[in-house]
């Protein structure tokens, strides 16, 4: 594979500030997102959700809805030809409920009508008789033997453990032990584009689905099994995605199954677009965690033991809970050497909105707990938080909690040093503790750090493909089985192909993913796309180049090894041809200009019995620093400055990389200060952005980004991962800064005004905001 260009070891396009390949479509408004696709003669789909979080369905009467003019289908579970439910790990998520409903986002019936208004009207005419069941809303209580059952086989959704050393010995070796409980809240992905899909009956008796899909292949499996169709008759095409952050997987499987069912029943295209309220009600969220940490440390500040028990709320369905909690169990001790570890994590079914993948995937929760804890330990020992961490961080050759020896370069200390020296941490941290008591505004500074396994790890099959098709005019079409959901995959993959083939990136058109074009490349999750697809793009480019290089050598009358591919030319000494000339000549000679690159990840291992193994093939490291101002009269926290340092292995596109960090910090700031998806007895307490508060442009601090390039031997050009690390440690840095400012520790997220001011959250009234307005109407 190409390592250098004629200028030496510098890259042509990799690492530069490249504009996104899809930016022009997006700034002009011509990019087509899920809801922007329409067909002549299309029908509009609508869903009847359950009003109860837990109830037996006694009867469903659709007669009045069917009798309405302009209604083309009213369907219930009885109309599903194949499997009634789906799910990648536990296939129990109901497309349309039959026996009982398990959360208020469950669907009972669907309608297809000539207009959206008629569809809504029909929904109102469907009569369902329910017999309400006791609601399970607390995950801890859900696990007690006396709890009502959400699923027949018990409320335990997942349990993972890690055992290292002997926990009792660890506590014996400790000079003191502290024990605290930390809790994190349920949050919504809040992609600005709500879920949207268009399902069309296909000529081959199948169905074509175009929509806001993050994981095409899992959605295709769900639709195929629900409709009883072979995989080749279900075509899923990704529309340009308006954000996902892990959120458009099972939520999209559900809506795609329903739309496809309506399309095949009516023989017409069916469009379904969620309102924000529907999206909030139905779509899964990030797991709230309750985490109990008991930690032993010796007088010199060295960690001796960690005993961790975590309870996660899985909500009504499993979705990816087993995998989310697995990542938590692997990383639960934070990026520290701990000789004796005992970790147990449980996920429990409840009648709350189900939870699943969201940027971080089980890490933002444990990062908040561990990083708060390290500051609390430092305070006990009279050390500053930086020093406390340095004494315990993972270093080259360290053994992780799961017994994995780190054989790559471990850059955690470097990341910590970078943020603390750029932010003047120690001096400010000390000064903030001696602030003038007259002023209500207190300054605070805080740090956090993490390590994170790259890609899926021992979760399962981990491979991806990229297709490259060179055209006879020297342009190229590139596509991939992984998607661009806004993170910039299209650009990154295009840049790799451009680098390898010596193409200008503006000669590449990147196509959105399509299940009929590329083989199953797994899900676009786990910050795996740059690594997996980047490597696949290199493989594919090399296959193609090896095929066309002999023709170029022939045309230039030189050895293939003397050829240089750069800036759309192929040169050998002083003579050169254009890539277009070469491509045209290859075509004339009958040589294929299309190649398919496939990359499979290196091996990982895992023993579920004791939680040991090489869980991930490599890790990334990062550190964050936050400065805040806290108004101690109101509890208001303003983040004034942020520094984020990440070892990404190698920056592939500096624009894209910085964007990931800025966005990750913003999302982490929302998690720290603003966001909470509130439910009471399984009923959502909010439904839109009037109450679910996201950071706005006015809330953002000045943010400094520092990249470390640790040059991983496995990654494309040494690149590793960034999307999730950029997000996972922002909240604890802010929480630690707030504690530095106020001298008081808040162990619950988000740090609302009340929590900061009073140390507890106030319980809001039953109906407020949009719910109250709705109540007033009726």
């Amino acid at each position, binding site marked *: 594979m190409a390592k250098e260009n004629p200028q030496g070891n510098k890259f042509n396009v990799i690492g530069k500030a490249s504009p*996104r390949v899809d930016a022009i479509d997006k*700034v002009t408004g*011509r990019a087509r997102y899920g809801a*922007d696709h329409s067909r002549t003669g299309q029908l509009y789909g609508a869903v009847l959700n359950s009003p109860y979080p837990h109830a037996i369905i006694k009867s469903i009467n659709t007669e009045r809805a069917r009798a309405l003019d302009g209604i083309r289908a009213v369907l219930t579970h009885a109309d599903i030809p194949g499997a009634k439910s789906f799910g990648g790990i536990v296939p129990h998520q109901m497309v349309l409920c039959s026996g009982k409903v398990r959360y208020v986002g469950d669907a009972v019936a669907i309608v297809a009508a000539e207009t959206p208004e008629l569809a809504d009207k029909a929904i109102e005419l469907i009569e369902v008789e329910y017999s309400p069941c006791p609601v399970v809303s607390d995950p801890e209580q859900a696990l007690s033997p006396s709890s009502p059952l959400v699923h027949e086989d018990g409320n335990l959704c997942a349990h993972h453990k890690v055992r290292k050393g002997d926990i009792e010995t660890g506590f014996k070796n400790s000079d003191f032990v502290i024990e605290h409980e930390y809790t994190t809240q349920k949050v919504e992905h809040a992609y600005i*584009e709500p879920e949207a899909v268009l399902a069309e009956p296909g000529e081959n008796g199948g169905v074509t689905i175009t929509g806001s899909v993050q994981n095409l292949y899992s959605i295709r499996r769900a639709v195929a099994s629900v409709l009883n169709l072979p995989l080749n008759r279900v075509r899923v095409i990704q529309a340009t995605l308006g954000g996902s952050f892990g959120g458009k997987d099972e939520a999209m499987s559900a809506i795609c199954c329903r739309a496809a069912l309506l399309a095949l029943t009516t023989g017409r295209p069916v469009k379904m677009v969620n309102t*924000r309220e529907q999206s909030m009600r139905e779509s899964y969220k990030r797991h709230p965690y309750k985490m109990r940490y008991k930690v032993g440390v010796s007088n010199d500040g060295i960690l001796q033991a960690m005993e961790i028990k975590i309870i996660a709320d899985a909500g009504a369905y499993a979705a990816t809970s087993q995998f989310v909690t697995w990542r938590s169990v692997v990383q639960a001790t934070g990026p520290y050497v701990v000789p004796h570890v005992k970790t147990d994590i449980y996920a429990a079914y409840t009648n709350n909105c189900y939870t699943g993948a969201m940027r971080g995937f089980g890490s933002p929760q444990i990062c908040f707990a561990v990083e708060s804890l390290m500051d609390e330990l430092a305070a006990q020992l009279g050390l500053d938080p930086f020093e406390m961490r340095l004494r315990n961080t993972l270093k080259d050759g360290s053994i992780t909690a799961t017994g994995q020896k780190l054989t790559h370069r471990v850059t955690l200390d470097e990341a910590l040093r970078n943020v603390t020296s750029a932010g003047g941490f120690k001096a400010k941290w000390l000064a903030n503790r001696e602030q003038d008591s007259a002023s209500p505004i207190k300054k605070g500074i805080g740090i956090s750090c993490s390590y994170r396994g790259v890609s899926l790890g021992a979760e399962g099959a981990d491979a991806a493909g990229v297709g490259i098709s060179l055209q006879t005019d020297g342009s190229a079409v590139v596509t991939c089985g992984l998607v661009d959901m806004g993170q910039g995959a299209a650009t990154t993959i295009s840049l790799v192909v451009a680098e390898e083939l010596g193409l200008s990136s503006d000669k590449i058109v990147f196509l959105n993913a399509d299940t009929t074009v590329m083989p199953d490349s797994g899900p676009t999750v786990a910050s795996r796309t740059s690594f997996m697809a980047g490597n696949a793009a290199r493989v594919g480019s090399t296959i193609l180049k090896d095929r066309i290089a002999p023709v170029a050598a022939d045309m230039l009358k030189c050895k293939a090894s003397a050829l240089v591919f750069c800036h759309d030319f192929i040169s050998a000494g002083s003579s050169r041809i254009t890539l277009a000339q070469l491509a045209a000549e290859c075509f004339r000679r009958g040589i294929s200009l299309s190649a398919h690159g496939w990359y499979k990840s290196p091996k990982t291992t895992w023993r579920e019995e004791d939680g040991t193994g090489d869980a991930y093939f490599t890790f990334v490291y990062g550190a964050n620093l936050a400065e805040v101002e806290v108004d101690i009269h109101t509890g208001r926290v303003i983040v004034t400055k942020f520094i984020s340092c990440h070892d990404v292995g190698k920056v592939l596109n500096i624009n894209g990389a910085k964007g990931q960090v800025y966005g990750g910090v*913003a999302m982490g700031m929302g998690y720290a200060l603003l966001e909470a998806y509130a439910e009471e007895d399984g009923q959502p307490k909010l439904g839109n952005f009037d109450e679910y508060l996201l950071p706005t*442009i006015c809330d953002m601090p000045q943010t400094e980004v520092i990249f470390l390039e640790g040059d991983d031997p496995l990654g494309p050009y040494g690149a590793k991962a960034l999307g999730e690390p950029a997000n996972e440690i922002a909240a604890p840095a802010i929480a630690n800064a707030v504690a530095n400012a106020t001298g008081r520790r808040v162990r619950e997220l988000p740090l609302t005004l009340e929590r900061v001011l009073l140390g507890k959250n106030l319980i809001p009234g039953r109906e407020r905001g949009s719910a109250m307005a709705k109540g007033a109407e009726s």
Partner: protein
Amino acid sequence: MKVRFKLNGKFVMLDLPGVERLIDLLRERLDLVGTKEGCGKGECGACTVLLDGKPVCSCLMLASQIAGHEIVTIEGVAADNRYAHILNAFEETGAVQCGYCSPGMIVSAAALLARNRHPSDNEIKRALAGNLCRCTGYSKIIEAVSRAAERVAQERK
């Protein structure tokens, strides 16, 4: 009800039902799908269009309210050379990620730069405070708008 208004520089005469939202008229009937819907209640700003040069949420307006007025959507902004600097700056700086908020952001920025040629960072923030973005953390958006303003200023010199 027959209504006459100006849309992206051209006069249009349309028969409107009384209760159609402006966003639905634009997206569903006129195929101007560059205007996005994110929340349907004026919280996210993805549906921002210009009404007589001022940014408004098209999800909060009835189509019939635009009688006699001028509407410019992202398609109109993109086709108008006066705004080319804004589009270019969004592209170059990396202010676009998923892009769903971009049309609304750009329309709001266009309104700002039309009335304020040298906006400070704070003025940019105030002008875009009604446009939510979940991807970018806003940094590059501020950079894009101030870069566009600089270019416009340079050209006028």
